């Protein structure tokens, strides 16, 4: 019974749309079950075009869009339900709250066909669910960004839509505000269970929300699965790509931390072989198995150097080592550090003076997880 109900609510979109102005073609075919489906991709990948097709704001050239068995668009049958008949919630990137209406009037806007009492009751319930009942009489222009997001979500959900589309609605918010809003949205969806297409270009959001991820690139679906399954297979190493990295090291995957979106690799120096102790390094998670070999590229300018063991850092990698040499190149100092593997670090002249760096000095290197770029060997 429950399974039947879920099947009734699955969004199926098979869409082809050529955008006339550019030469862009969106060509996708996917199912989205109730819950979050992250639509991930760079800008220009076709994410908003896809949402606009589902909402009915854009008419695809061909294909079919349906929820359960109910078609919203079917090119073969010349069916194109107008936007207002689709009952799809859509929160735009700029939210599009009505500036001339109060928060309460904004939320009530889509309920005008209901009797007054029910309208009030539903509005009050959803404002409470998104923790903004105290703003009912404010105007969108006078409340904070996070509050506006909450109002926009409440307005889109109060009509009980069959699908919710979110176009990067939280990008402008700080992480804490974002996390609280996501929690409230999750809580709402526990009770209602509808497919939510959540568009983002942020890797962090993919891991934070990820039940299912759809990777879009150039209008096509590159991959569809859990965040770990689909996210960023290591890049093909090429001369051009290597050119920017002063440090390119061999590494073996030691362990995966899918929940944190990271993994631990062991570094070996490529020339000197494996006689030295391997250095553990936390890197972004890519599609790779434990024991597989990769290359890690780290820019010399992305590494911080400290003369005492640093504490309280957000960076995941603090590696002790010994300063081998300092070379002045124009206005930067290129330092070579042996920390089991040899790494090049770029410093300013002022940093060398302030830290009184000399060869032989003990130093600590600080490397952020996302400064480690993984490439295929």
């Amino acid at each position: 019974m429950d399974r039947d109900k879920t099947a009734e609510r699955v969004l199926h979109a098979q869409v082809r749309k050529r955008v006339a102005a550019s030469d862009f073609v969106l060509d996708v075919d996917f199912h989205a079950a109730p819950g979050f489906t992250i639509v991930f991709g760079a800008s220009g990948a076709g994410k908003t075009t896809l949402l606009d097709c589902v909402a009915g704001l854009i008419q695809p050239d061909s294909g079919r869009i349906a929820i359960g068995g109910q078609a919203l668009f079917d090119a073969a049958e010349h069916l194109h339900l107008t936007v207002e008949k689709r009952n799809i919630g859509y929160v735009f990137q700029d939210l599009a709250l009505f500036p001339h209406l109060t928060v309460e009037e904004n939320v009530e806007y889509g309920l005008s066909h209901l009797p007054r009492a029910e309208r009030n009751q539903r509005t009050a319930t959803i404002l409470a669910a998104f923790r903004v009942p105290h703003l009912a009489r404010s105007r969108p222009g006078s409340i904070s960004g996070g509050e506006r997001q909450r109002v926009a979500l409440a307005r889109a959900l109060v009509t009980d839509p069959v699908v919710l589309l979110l176009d990067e609605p939280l990008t402008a918010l700080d992480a804490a505000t974002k996390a609280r809003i996501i929690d409230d949205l999750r809580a709402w969806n526990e009770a209602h269970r509808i497919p939510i297409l959540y568009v983002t270009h942020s890797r962090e959001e993919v891991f934070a929300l990820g039940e299912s991820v759809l990777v879009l690139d150039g209008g096509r679906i590159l991959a569809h699965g859990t965040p770990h399954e689909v996210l960023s297979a290591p890049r093909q190493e090429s001369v051009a790509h290597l050119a920017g990295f002063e440090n390119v090291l061999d590494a073996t995957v030691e362990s995966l931390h899918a929940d944190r979106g990271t993994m631990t690799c062991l570094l070996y120096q490529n020339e000197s072989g494996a006689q030295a102790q391997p250095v553990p390094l936390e890197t972004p998670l890519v599609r790779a198995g434990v024991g597989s070999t990769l290359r890690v590229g780290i820019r010399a300018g992305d590494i911080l150097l400290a003369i005492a063991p640093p504490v309280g850092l957000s960076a995941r990698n603090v590696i002790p080592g010994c300063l081998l040499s300092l070379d002045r190149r124009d206005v930067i100092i290129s330092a070579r550090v042996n920390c089991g593997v040899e790494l090049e670090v770029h410093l300013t002249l002022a940093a060398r003076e302030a830290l009184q760096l000399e060869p032989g000095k003990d130093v600590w290197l600080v490397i952020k997880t996302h400064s480690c770029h993984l490439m295929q060997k």
Partner: protein
Amino acid sequence: MSIDWQAFWLTLRLALIVSALLFVIGLPIAYWIAFSRWRWKFLIEAIVALPIVLPPTVLGFYLLVVLGPHSPLGRWWISLTGHTLAFTFSGLVIGSILYSLPFAVQPFSASFSSVDRRLISASATLGVSPLKTFFRVTVPLSKPGLITGAALTFAHTMGEFGVVLMVGGNIPGITRTVSIEIFDQVQASNYATANATALLLLVICFAMLAIVYGLNRKAWLIAPIHGQR
């Protein structure tokens, strides 16, 4: 020196009727111009703007032809009412509507175009029909443009001369407006009367526009269109 109050009331009545009718006629035309994607739309825009550049005598002349007893429209009107449209108050209203059309339609459509399309899309996703969206989102957010359009129509009709002279002639109580009265007084060398009438018209038009621009400023403060970014 005696101001022709009859001419004043006639002009005021004409301006009010024309403003009201143009508000109703102008809204759908402006809406179509703002939102249509028809490729030949620019032709319609050009036709609507024509009265701005056309000499009023040209417009008046064609109106006389179209409203006169030799055109189908004129004959239809005669069969309906027993007299021609030319040299009547109704004829004056029709002429003024055409003459002031761009002064209503252009501010209307400019303000419709400036309403964020995403707001209109948002309204649609909330299940609201395009017509209701027009009255609940587009019109309230276009208030400054609508007020400006109505005010310009009113002021423009108050001051028109050429079309009135061509279509209405100079019949006291029926088609003699203030501007024609001033012309008559100057022709008769009654400069004092002409001066008083002209000054009164100037003051009325200024007061009218000042009130409108004052209201508009307030409208912006109450509902800033782009205030939420």
